[in-house]
């Protein structure tokens, strides 16, 4: 492969990777926003829970949302770390 073509291909690969990272960050932010909203709604529900069973069920759902949010934050952190490097 000739040098100018090699540069062109490398540039394209790099820009594709960047675009994919940007898209992933956008998706992660969107998921984060939805999960935070869901978490807030569940917290409100928990305050008005009438029996122990529904309280337990809502608490479980909150735990799941929290675990998912943690994963989102971890993935976002990874993305920013890759950017810095």
């Amino acid at each position: 492969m000739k040098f100018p073509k090699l540069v062109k291909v490398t540039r394209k690969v790099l820009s594709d990777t960047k675009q994919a990272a940007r898209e992933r960050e956008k998706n992660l932010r969107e998921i984060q926003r939805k999960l935070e909203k869901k978490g807030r709604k569940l917290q409100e529900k928990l305050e008005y829970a009438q029996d122990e069973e529904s309280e337990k069920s809502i608490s479980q759902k909150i735990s799941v949302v929290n675990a998912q949010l943690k994963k989102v934050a971890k993935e976002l952190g990874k993305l920013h770390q890759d950017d810095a490097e």
Partner: protein
Amino acid sequence: MFKKIILFSILLTLTYGFWLSSDFKEISAGVAIFLFGMLSLEEGFKAFTGGVLEKLLRRTTDKTWKSLAFGVVSTAAMQSSSLVSVITISFLSTGLIGLTAGIGIVFGANLGTTTGAWLIAAFGMKVNLASYAMPILVFGVIGVLQKPSPLKGLGYILTGLGFLFLGIHHMKEGFEAFRDSIDLTTYAIEGYAGIVIFTVIGILATVIMQSSHATLVLIITALSSQQITYDNALALAIGANIGTTVTAIIGAMSANIQGKRLAAAHFLFNFITAALAIIFIYQIGALVEWLSALLKISDSNYILKLAIFHSVFNTLGIIIMLPFINKLADKLKIIMPDEPLNREKSLYLSNSAIELPDTAITAVRKETLHLFDNAFTVIAHGLNFHRTDILSDRNLGDLNVNSATLVPINFDAEYDRTIKSLYSDIIHFISRAQINMKPKQADQLFALRAAGRDIVEAIKDTKHMYKNLSKYIDSDNQYIRGEYNRLRLQLGKLMRELSYIRNNVDDSASLLSFDSLKLDMEVNDSTTNGELEHLIRENKLSAQMATSLMNDSTYAYSIASKLIEVGEVLFVESDSSMKDTEKDIALTDEEVAEIIAEDSDMNKGKSV
């Protein structure tokens, strides 16, 4: 039988014609080669577009003018209104576009197809097309023999073009040679009688050849060889416009009611347009003369004038019919009402959808959802719930259950009636559709097939569970009664959550919504097992009861996990990059287990 007689008569007439005249043989061969070229061209576009056309269609049908423009442009580009019609019918059948949009596309396709006459009239009659056909055919065949789909598609397109050129050349040669022996213009009929008779001939020729394009080329070549008069050529072109609707009507026979409505709209449009063109043929003729003078087309260039006439009367048809497009759609819905929802028959799997990978996937998804709905009812009855109870807000625990209130269900009969044939239709459709698919599309189809299998398995598990559930739900032993009641309540709640995720209009279904269901499932399973051990230790259950409960808790777990997996495949429709990100965030089995352990530790802490 009737079809066979017609086919036999045509073959006999052709054979007699070939024996009688070698020129007729050449013209017929030209038509045959031209038709083969069109088939090849369609094949090429199907392979070459790789879903582009479908994506475009999905985006450009929100407004009538966009549907119309799509019909014009796509038909002009591909020179095949039948391919556009087939795609439109398949989109309508699978519910991807509405009837008004479909009608708009068909109107546009009618105008788009007139570009063919322009191309042939402008270039086809002046240039020696056969000299171009040969090299194009050679390049085309080399392309067809290649493996990569775009190259193969390009090969088919080139081969198609080559055959089209060759077909036109043979038709031209045949008519020119014909001129030396017979002068067909002696059969020309003047006045309205001639117009009506030649319109009928145009209809018949198009019905036989199944292509208005081929008829039009035949008309143009005959006109250029002065074998028919200009007036009769106009009438033949009008006839071709009506004849082409027969192809759409035949295509719609295998489609659902939406496809049939579209075929009816197509016929109405072409019939009304043709009727107007016949009534006002002399006025339209005058308009053509005026336009020809404006475009500096010579008085004797009847071929280009025919092309103008073809475009003008189709444009007039659109101008007249377009304001009534919504009324037409409403009227058709009244005249051809929706078929009553049939739980047993497939609703979306039409033959027209098979050729288009993305549409086929949508059709399978919708049909599998139909299967899921049928299974939902069977499983609900198997758990002694009414479907409406699960879909309501009522507390499922409040519903009193005993042998008197058991929902009567014959699993085998229900399975045969609402699941078996539908499931086998889906499998059969998938096996035919996957042939044209790329690996990524085939993966989607594979996931849908697995979802169908899971639905069937879930029903079978429910059937196994039902045997003991109906026995113990009314038992004198309160413990076994309580445990079975708990199992059915857990599954009932899961089904309610699933339908909530599916119908949640505020927030589109996300893969992440299923994580809390998985957690519930694991918690329920461990609670049931813990309770079972406790009851055995306390001698509250007989050995037979304990064994039954142990087996049935496994069935309940299996039903839950299968329904969740089905939901993940069927309910989530986000774009693929979002789906991929969600997959990465969704909790793994280990993470779910960690949450359960943490919650359990926390509860222990609270109780201490």
